[in-house]
């Protein structure tokens, strides 16, 4: 990959030539590249988080980016051991650094797409008071982003010689469910709250249904 040191070149390659990034992640300098991808990914999510927080304004402008950044990092850490094992089950003789790199690159790619969606999300956040609508919209953008991220992991798996796709599909479901639950664990992300973290534990579907049924909150 030409000029892997340059962040713009790295992100450009991630979008235009993901194969080059996959190849680079299998080389000796992979840990440095993987670290960069994770940092860019978390930063990208945090930038999108400011748009999420803009719905409520005030303290939520820093709470939402912090929660989204930490939540993404936690989801990655929770699912990394299973991705490594599932990679082996898929028939790949992968190194941990390559697996980490592929996952971090997927997060980075999805965060770039989220930044692309940020202006659209911001316009809607300034036009509506409905937390449920904005939640659904952010979720839709996140699903689109992560779909491309997971496609990157799939491409990396094929490059590394995966024999079966089934294991990655199962892992993808686990990762998406963990991320969905993370939005409930760290709630509220869009709307304001008196406490930083929730006092009651809930399953994400129960929380989503309650949000849909709840009346709209007044914008500050």
């Amino acid at each position, binding site marked *: 990959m030409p000029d892997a040191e340059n962040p713009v070149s790295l992100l450009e390659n991630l979008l235009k030539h993901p194969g080059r990034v996959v190849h680079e992640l299998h080389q000796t300098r992979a840990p440095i590249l993987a670290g960069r991808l994770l940092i860019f990914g978390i930063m990208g999510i945090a930038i999108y988080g400011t748009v999420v927080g803009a719905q409520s304004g005030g303290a939520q402008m820093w709470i939402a980016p912090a929660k989204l950044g930490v939540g993404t990092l936690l989801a990655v850490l929770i699912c990394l051991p299973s991705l490594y094992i599932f990679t*082996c089950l898929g028939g790949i*003789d992968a190194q941990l650094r390559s697996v980490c790199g592929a996952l971090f690159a997927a997060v980075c790619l999805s965060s770039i797409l989220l930044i692309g969606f940020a202006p659209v999300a911001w316009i809607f956040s300034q036009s509506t008071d409905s937390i449920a609508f904005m939640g659904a919209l952010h979720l839709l953008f996140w699903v689109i982003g992560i779909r491309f991220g997971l496609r990157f992991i799939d491409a990396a798996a094929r490059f590394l010689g995966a024999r079966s796709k089934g294991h990655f599909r199962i892992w993808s479901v686990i990762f998406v469910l963990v991320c969905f639950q993370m939005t409930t664990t760290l709630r509220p992300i869009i709307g304001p709250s008196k406490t930083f973290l929730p006092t009651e534990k809930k399953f994400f579907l129960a929380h989503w249904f309650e949000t849909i049924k709840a009346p709209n909150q007044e914008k500050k």
Partner: protein
Amino acid sequence: MIEHFKTLLRGEVGAVSLEKAGLRWFAIYCLAIVVGSSVYGATIGLWRAPLQSAFTAIKFPLLIFLTCIGNGAVNGMLAQLFGSGLSFKQTALAILMSFAIAAVILGALSPVTLFVLYNAPPLGSANAIVGHSMVLLTHVFAVAFAGILANRRLLDLLRRMTGRDATARAVLFSWLAGNLFLGAQLAWNLRPFIGSPGLTVQFLRDDPLRGNFYEAVWRAFQHLFF
């Protein structure tokens, strides 16, 4: 050792590794079972209480080893009766290997089950029964998934060892039937694993050897339909 486990997970272990089975591999598979299933077991009991977590971390590998020991002789005999050509030592190693794969998968899934546990309504809450069901279902899916994958790898190995698909399947299903039959009863004897919200935390129930799993299932069936 890590390379060997990666080969195991990829399903690329050759017949040769069973043919020259040494004590080293027995020890390594046992270690993998102890580590993987203890870590996972700890996440099973943690919803009820930290002490239950410690108990389940001990009992989960114990359940696996007792099942292997209890069925060791009959599994070896069945393998020979079906014409697999496997010795008792090879049979034991193959079964330990499949349990080791399951334990490694479960160990890798334990951060996910721990996250589910963190999000489950706790014992003292009004929704404790929802929490119990959530934890129970998560573990049922995780254990079933790990078990299915481990047995697929075992079937691949048996195919390579025997050279015949029908024989490999016959041996695997006979082992599965025996292990499930005994394993279910041993799990009943070693209960509780998660720990019912209404009962005290115990290593074993007061009457662990009274009754059996199949009688309990039959009674539940009778209560439901008669």
